[in-house]
Each structure stands twice: as structure tokens, then as C-alpha cells.
């Protein structure tokens, strides 16, 4: 097990800068997600850690070892590939046993090596030592595939293949587990249960895990910490709640959950609140503004919709007037699109049965608490 440290890593392909000055400090036993849109550099970062790409500059440490000069096959990073990359000519057992065979191969004399090659290449001469067999079966039991050891990988379902890939990576007791979009090939339902499986196994083994995904929900629900990447750079690192409540840029606010982003100008301070004015709104925020022109971030679920004639106490909350353009009933919540000045705000309200849904064209009052208005 080990921590992973990346210092000032840059990677260029010809003229294209894929990674720019990446710094990461992942603790031992941490479940860490690299999150970002496609082409943001998250997979390249992972491939650099695994040793499939060499950084143009900067350094990578796994544990206390600087790994830059260590070839991929000696880095001891277990990787779960996006396509799983299971060996199609081997059955489940042989797939999982592969790394153990290689370990033995490297530790044997040439004559023994021939025997190991023979069992890697043919099934007939495949005599596995008992300890190796036991180890493989243990890990297969762990991922609940002990009854499928003799199956070809092509005969397995997507979820089972995923677990074989996981078992194959775990059996070598890697210093760090790397997962490249491991859930993207599964259907919605399986994805949810697989999320729990992976998280449970990670917690259970306490293995340092780096997880690449473009799905913010996946990253937020599974990881201890998330690094959001964009255009080859890390934009923000933090726990899921930090990222959600304190996004450092509008990009993150939008990428991590849905946000209403408004352009505003700071007018001054009043009773400890910052006053921001924009097209069609005037808002008070508990955030201290660092500059005059700011982005105002408001999460849809932090807004309440009231009738136009209701009386609201302005001292504790902001009130904005608007017109409902569309209302969408989504089961437990109702989502409104509300026109405010030149903006269309998205508002999510919890729906309890029998409550009124505001119709399209209706004038409404929107309320947001001061501390829910974020200025960046």
C-alpha cells in the first residue's frame, strides 16, 4: 500500500499540452477520483502513474519510491481498464492467476521458467502450485466468482467481467489500484450496485485507489476526495461536499451538480452582507467578494418558489420576482424554469402530494437565503 504524490507533472504530445503542471498528494488508503470532461487529461494522468506514458517533466512517487525510471511492469499498480482488457484466450482462473505466474516466472531459474511458460500457453500442462491456486480462489470468492473459475471470460455478463478485472488487479496486492472509467460499460442498474461493491472492497482492503470518471455523480458518491480537471489542469481538489458547497470556479459549479450562474456587480456592503446587482435582480450574499465583477452561483434546490402575493421577510432572505416559463414534474421534485430579467433560473422544489404546482405564465416570488448565494 502506498501514497501517491505527483509534483509539477507536465505532458506534451508534439505541440499539444495534455497535462500542465499537475500536483497531487493522495494519501495512503484514500479513494481518490479524477473527474473531468473527456479530453481533460484525467486518463493521461492515470497512464503516467501506471507507466504507460512518460511525463515530459515533473516527478511521480508511489510510496516513497520515485517511479519515473521504473518500467510499467515493475510499478505494482493494479489497473482496471475501461474495456476490462481480459485475456480472451484464458478462462477466469487463468486471467486472475496471470500476475502470480509472472511473479513466479521472474523468481525462477530457466528450467522452471519453461514450465511456467507451458502453463501460461497451454491448458494441458497447467499444473498450478497449491498456494497459487488457493490465492486465486480466495480472491475469486471475494468477488463472488468462485463458481465461474473455469468459464471463458466471453461467457460472462458485463458485471462479472468487471469483477474479474478487479480480482485480477487485486490479486497482485498492488501498491495502488487504478480504475479507468470502470463503470462506463455497465447499464444503469448494475452501475449502482457496482459502485457499492467497489467502495466496500476499497474500504475493506484499505487500498489506495485512483478512479477516473467523467460522471460527477459517480465521483461524488464514491470518492473521499475529488480532483476536478479541465483542459489538462487541475481546477480544484476537495471532498465532495467542499466541491459542492464551495466551487472555486463557475466551471466546477456547473460540472459538480446543476447551478444557476448569473453575472453581477458588487455594489457595496450592508449589515455584513455583500450587495450584488445584475440584470433584473438585487441580491445580498454572506460571501465576501474578492473583486467587483463576480459570478453569482445559486443551486436550484436552495431556491423556494412562493406566490406573487405572499409576504416575505426581506431581512433574512433574498426575494426575486419572476415568471414561470415551464414546470416539469419529476416525481419527488418539481423543476421550474423561471424568467428573471434576462436569465432563466432553474429551481427545484420538493413536491408533497396535493401541493400546488405553479402554472406556466404565472408571476412568482423566488426566495434564497443570504448564505446560499455564492460569489466567485
Amino acid at each position, binding site marked *: 500500500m502506498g501514497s501517491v504524490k505527483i509534483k509539477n507533472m507536465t505532458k506534451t504530445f508534439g505541440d499539444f499540452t495534455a497535462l500542465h503542471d499537475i500536483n497531487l498528494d493522495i494519501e495512503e488508503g484514500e479513494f481518490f477520483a479524477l473527474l473531468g470532461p473527456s479530453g481533460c487529461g484525467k486518463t493521461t494522468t492515470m497512464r503516467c502513474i501506471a507507466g504507460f506514458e512518460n511525463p515530459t517533466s515533473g516527478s511521480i512517487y508511489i510510496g516513497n519510491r520515485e517511479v519515473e525510471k521504473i518500467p510499467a511492469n515493475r510499478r505494482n499498480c493494479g489497473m482496471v481498464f475501461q474495456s476490462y482488457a481480459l485475456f480472451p484466450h484464458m478462462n477466469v482462473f487463468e486471467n486472475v492467476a496471470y500476475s502470480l505466474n*509472472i511473479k513466479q516466472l521472474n523468481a525462477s531459474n530457466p528450467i522452471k521458467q519453461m514450465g511456467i511458460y507451458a502453463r501460461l500457453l497451454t491448458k494441458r500442462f497447467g499444473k498450478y502450485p497449491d498456494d497459487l491456486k488457493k490465492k486465486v480462489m480466495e480472491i475469486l470468492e471475494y468477488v463472488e466468482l468462485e463458481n465461474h473459475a473455469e468459464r471463458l471470460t466471453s461467457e460472462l455478463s458485463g458485471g462479472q467481467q468487471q469483477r474479474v478485472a478487479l480480482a485480477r488487479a487485486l490479486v497482485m496486492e498492488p501498491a495502488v489500484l487504478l480504475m479507468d472509467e470502470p463503470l462506463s460499460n455497465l447499464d444503469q442498474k448494475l452501475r449502482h450496485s457496482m459502485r457499492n461493491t467497489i467502495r466496500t472492497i476499497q474500504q475493506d482492503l484499505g487500498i489506495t485507489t485512483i478512479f477516473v470518471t467523467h460522471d460527477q455523480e459517480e465521483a461524488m458518491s464514491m470518492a473521499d476526495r475529488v480532483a476536478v480537471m479541465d483542459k489538462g489542469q487541475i481546477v480544484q481538489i476537495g471532498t465532495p461536499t467542499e466541491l459542492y458547497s464551495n466551487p472555486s470556479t463557475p466551471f466546477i459549479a456547473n460540472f459538480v451538480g446543476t447551478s444557476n450562474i448569473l453575472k453581477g456587480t458588487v455594489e457595496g456592503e450592508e449589515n455584513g452582507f455583500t450587495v450584488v446587482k445584475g440584470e433584473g435582480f438585487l441580491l445580498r450574499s454572506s460571501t465576501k467578494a474578492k473583486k467587483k465583477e463576480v459570478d453569482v452561483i445559486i443551486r436550484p434546490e436552495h431556491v423556494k418558489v412562493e406566490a406573487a402575493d405572499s409576504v416575505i421577510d426581506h431581512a433574512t432572505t433574498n426575494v426575486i420576482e419572476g415568471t414561470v416559463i415551464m414546470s416539469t414534474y419529476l416525481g419527488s421534485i418539481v423543476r421550474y424554469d423561471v424568467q428573471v430579467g434576462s436569465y432563466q433560473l432553474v429551481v427545484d422544489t420538493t413536491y408533497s402530494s396535493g401541493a400546488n404546482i405553479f402554472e406556466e405564465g404565472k408571476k412568482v416570488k423566488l426566495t434564497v437565503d443570504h448564505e446560499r448565494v455564492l460569489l466567485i
Partner: protein
Amino acid sequence: MNRIKNSFNGLTVVKVLIYAFFGLFMLLPLLSVFVVSFTGEPTNLLGSLTDPAIFNSTLEKFKNISLDNYKRIFSGKGYFSALKNSLALAFTVTIIIILVCIPLAYGIARTKMPFKKTISALCMIPLIVPTFISAYAFIIMFGRAGWVTQIYNALGGEGMLLNPYSMAGVVAVQVFFFFPYALWPLVAAFKVSDISLEEASQNLGAKNWFTFIFVTFPLALPGVISSALLIFTVSFSDFGSPIVLAPKELNLLVVEAYREISGFFNWGGAAILTVVMVIVAAFFFYLQHLYTKGKNYGSVSGKPKQQKLIENKLLTRVLSGYSLFVVLIPLLAMLSVALQSVATTWGKDLLPSGYTLNHYKTIFSTSMGNIQNSIMLATGALVLSVIIATFVSYFVVRQNSAKLDFIASIPLVVPGIAFGIALIQTFNTMPLQLTGTAVLLIIAYTIRRLPYMVRSTMGSMRAIKQDIEEAAVNLGATPLTAAITIVGPLMLPGIAAGSVLVFITVIKEASVSILLAPPEWAPMSLAIFQNILRAEYYSAAAMSVVLVVLVLVLQGIANIIGKKQRL
């Protein structure tokens, strides 16, 4: 230092070895032939690197460099007429084959002509039979005592219908035994061209023949030209039929080069002829490559087009009769060989005077060695080419090694006889004296047939995704171990398909065998060739039948493997 150590892994060593193999056994011989074509005498390039004395004598020879040999080819009769005749032969064969194949291909691709399946199956025969056997078969049929000649005379003809020992004879053999090389590309060309264009033409009022000439044929033209260029190279490089059939007064490059080297040991003359052969063959190969690169056979789309096959009774019957005639001649030629192999004597009459299995007894008692040699040499070449081709396709597909791709396809353009001469010249002296050994023969076979193997292994290599290999490395395997345990097994189908092809073509190989095989390693092809020269026709026939049967059996095995793979 560390960096150098990192990049210097097992795979790099393999790559260096492969380059060394090609460099030593292909590029160096070709280069040294090129040098000898100027110096006029054997030049030991390899020795010059190891021995200062040889180096000095090489320098001495370089001083005598002259264009004399080149002058000879463009002036005077000898070499120039050989070049002229070879070009004329290739040109004539190409034109005739294209003309013969167009109706045949049209019939197979576009009509419901009777016996279509039989005709397609019979088109395989010429591909199985080595040309020196087919040339010999033509002697049995059309020679002075041949049965065709006898029928012809009985019908009132004078002399021979077709003198096999002539240019016309060589042309005829090549036409009837090389036409399948052009046929299948042409069938493909006729199949892909868009039928709706033809229907449009008919709809506009054009007659059928008019549509064929002005719409169908132009659409198939890229296919026609590309196959014409291919046939040209094949005919130009063929050694088997000219060496058996060409009379003394008919100069052909391949025969001339063979005589210079085996009869007169005229190194300079053989070298210049070799250089000319390689240049001409490479030029036409390059033209074909250039031509097919730009064109993608017209209107090919992913959508399978339902084609309406022509059912016109008169047309299909005429086409079928014509096609049967074309495919029947190779079949009759082979049957003639088979009949001769069981005949006591055959020559005076239409049919043999009696039948016997003695010729088979003879070859199985006295020539068993040749059969064993063929199998062992082919196995050697097979093993070597599997190893080399697997790694070559690995480097080409995974490391984008365009250089290696190019080098591995050079053997396609070097005629067998030219390559044989180059090897003899390079390895007949120290420090690497290999001429007259089985090793050099196996290496020659391997290099000549490597492109087939590479093509087939490269296909299956492309089908293996990169991440499967990365997974193996990630699990601790070195790139070399990953190649052996993961990539190798996954390439097996491609290797199996290529292996059969290599084995068959090595057994059929005439030019390299005749030039390079030492007596104790004489393969079947050489034995047959020598029997024909010695006029021992009956044992030649029996041996030919054994060879063809061996090839057929292997082809059958290949088909079975192929079917299993697809299931």
C-alpha cells in the same frame, strides 16, 4: 545510462536481430549484385568488413568500375533481346489474360450461368500446380507425340497445333495457369460496381452491349488495370515455364540469367540481368501499388446491394461454354500428367499402351529422400517465417515501424531467380560461406515467402487491442513476456493460415530450389525439373502427382482450420 538500460529490453534485441537478418540475407545480397553489375567480377562486400586484404582487393575492383555491362544490355543482341523478349512475353500474356478473364469474370459475377460453382472450383487448379509442371503437362498434350497433336493430325491438320517449345507455348502455359490471379480481382470489380447505373443506362434506351461497353466496363476498369499490372509482374518473374519450354534461340531474362550463372559462371552478366529484372518487376509492382492506392474500386458502400443476376438463356449458355473451355485446359493438363504417371509407354497412340504403378514404386523407393527434403525444408522455412513474421507484424502494428513494413515487402518485387543469384554471389566465399547448404536454401525460401506470412499475421495483430497487452504489462509481464504469452496465442489463427500458404508455396518453388539446392538436399521440385531435363518423363509425372496431392491435402487442412476458426 539508466535510460539506455531501460530502452534496451528484450523486444529491442529482437528488433535488432530482425533488421540484421534482413540486412544480411536480403539487402546485402541485392546491394552486392548491384555492385557486381558494375565491377563485372565477384565482390566480397561482407569479407571487406572483416578482412583488410579482401577490403583492398575490393577497392581495387572499385577502380575498375565500368558501365560495360550496362552498355551490353542496350547495344548488341544478347541481353537486349532477352529484355525485349521478356517484356514482350509479359505484355502478351497480360493482354490475353485480361481478354480471356473479362467474359469469365462477368459470367461469375453477374449471371446465373450453368455450372458456375464447378467453374469457380476448377479455377483453383492453376493456383495449386507449379508452373514447371504445367509447362511439362503442355508438352504431353501439345508436343510432337502429344495426344492433342494426334487428334489434330487425325482431323487433317499438319504438324503441331501449338508448338510448346516456342514463345507461343510459354504464352499459352502462362495464360492458362496465371489467369486466376486476374480473375478474382475482376470478379470483385464487377460485383461492386453499382448496378443502378446500368439500369439507368438501360432505362435511357441503351442496348445491353452498349451498356456493357460504356457503363459496366469503365466502372470495372480500375480492377482491370490493377490486375493487369499484377499479371505483368507475375509473368515477367516466372521461371518455371520458360526454363522448361523456351528453346535455345528464344532469349528470356530469367533463362539467360540462369544460364550465365549455372553454365558459365559469368558473375557480371548474371548481376546485370538480375538488376534489370528487379528494376522492371519493382517498377510494375510500384505502378500497381500507386494505382490501387488512389482508387477504392468505385462505388463500394457498407450497404449490401441486392444484385439482379442476368438469366438470359443464350448469353449464359455461351458464357458457360466458354468458361468451361478455359478451365478445362488446366484440368486436362493435370489429367495428362496423372495418366502419364501410370502409363507403361505413351506416345505413339492417343492413349498409353499399358498401365502400371511401377513409376510410383520407383519414386517411393529411390526418391523418397526428395519428398523428405521438401517437407523438411518447407518446415524449416515455415518455423523461421512464423517467428520473423510474428515479430515484424508486432513492430509494424504496435510501434508503427513503417521501415520494417517496407523492408518485409521487398521480396514481393524480387523475382526468385534474381534473389537466388544474389544469394549465391554473396555467400559463396568466406567469411560466411553458405552457398550449397540447406541453411541458405531455407533462408531463401523464408525471405521469398515472408510477405504472405506477414500479411496474414498482421491482420490478426490488428485485431488485438492495445489495452490487452497493456494489461499484461500492468500485471508485471515484460513486453517480451506479454508478446509470448498474450499476443502470440491470440495470433494463432493468422499464423496457421499463413503457415499453410508458406508451406505450399515453398514446396512449389522452382527458381530458388534449382539455383540453390545442393544435391543432398534436393527437394521434389528440383527432382522433377532434373527428370524433365533428363527426359525421364514417367518418374517426373509420378513425382508431380505426389507433389500436387501433397499440396491439395495441405490446402484441405487449411480449409478445415479456416472453417473451425469461423465457428
